């Protein structure tokens, strides 16, 4: 299981309390994790990756293990610590504002 922490807006949208665990289908990639999240919480479809291209939304970022994974291909494998459940995947709304 992969641990995921969602931004507050998306937790409210999907009526999620805290951290969630998901089991991605196939290889453990960001895209597969988000696919699993969307399957369980349909309200979140298209809110992190674009519906059509499955590319990251410009103001969404992915962090794990103190590393910014936002520029990684969503099809690239997640770090082992995330796959093993030792560290969560953080999905962040990019900081924007004063």
């Amino acid at each position, binding site marked *: 299981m992969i641990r995921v922490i969602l*931004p507050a*807006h*998306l937790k*409210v*949208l999907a009526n999620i309390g805290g951290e969630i665990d998901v089991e991605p289908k196939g290889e453990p990639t960001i895209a597969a994790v988000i696919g699993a999240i969307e399957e369980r919480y*349909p*309200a979140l*479809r*298209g*809110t*992190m990756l*674009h*519906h*059509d291209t499955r590319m990251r*939304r410009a*103001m*969404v970022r992915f962090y794990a293990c103190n590393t910014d994974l936002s520029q990684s291909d969503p099809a690239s494998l997640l770090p082992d610590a995330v796959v093993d459940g030792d560290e969560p995947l953080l999905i962040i*709304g*990019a900081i*924007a504002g004063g």
Partner: protein
Amino acid sequence: MSAVRVLAGTKKGAFILQADAKRDRWKIDGPFFAGWEIYHVTGSPADPQRLYASQNSSWFGQVMQRSDDGGQTWRTVNNEFSYAGTPGTHQWFDGTARPWEFKRVWHIEPSLANPDVLYAGVEDAALFRSDDGGESWRELDALRTSSTGSTWHPGAGGLCLHTILLDPKDSQRIYVAISAAGAFRTDDGGANWRPINRGLHSEYIPDPNAEVGHCVHRLAMHPAKPQVLFMQKHWDVLRSDDGGDRWYEISGNLPTDFGFAIDVHAHEPDTIYVVPITSDREHFPLDGALRVYRSKSGGNEWEALTKGLPQEHCYVNVLRDAMDVDRLDSCGIYFGTTGGQIYASSDSGDSWTAIARDLPPVLSVEVQTLE
């Protein structure tokens, strides 16, 4: 006993205001979808308990919400708006080609007869239709792929389809308006469209009388006379008596004819309302005085309505979708401001009261008259 429900979309959530027919005491519920931009909330004329909301965020994109109980509970419906075929390009501000890209839903227009049928006007400009209460969407792409689509360019707010009018006497006739392309009409339910901008004159485009390229801010229609249309353009207030085939200016004695909102009295098809805004570079009322202007003659002769509205130090705007009317015997007029006020009049505009004063900037106001 009748009641009135005001649905307000704001920059930070939706609010529902409700009062009985006296309209003197308002209960305010919300914010719904707190923190999100709510471009539009509206109800089905066929089932007032069926509401739809367009929820958007720069971070997380478009979400569509639906309520089946008058806004007490909501659930998300489909938020996938895919352009038909290969979308191609439209013009950018500088005239260069820019690919069509979905950004948000500006306006939702439910069918007059079926609560499960609704239209969505989106940015980049296109019209979508759902036949299943928002569970799926398909583009009525003949509008966008018409001969003029590649020449459309955005207004300051984006290339948005912001107005959808359904003809109550002809289910196949639909009007839409796009900033900054103009007004368009279909007479066959969306299979074919044509621009209806003859008579519009816009100095800010290379050919001021061009077929498309006009920044139409809003259209309005009275259901008893659907062939008569009213338009608030970037500059100019106009009228058509033939379904948009030809427009003529009715700005008359308005102190400025720039503005966004325009609407028609519920029972008097020739009584219309606008909120003049100083200019395209000063989006606030002239002289800091918030005045609604009413014409009882279908245009040209306008009177200022000021009672109860701030007449000094007022620098708010009233956006294009932020005015509506109720259908009670003494017609109520409502509008929201970018300062977070919602003003209401229960006497056709003669006097006004702020029924909400400190909301986030108001993007849209829709009014339901409940039996």
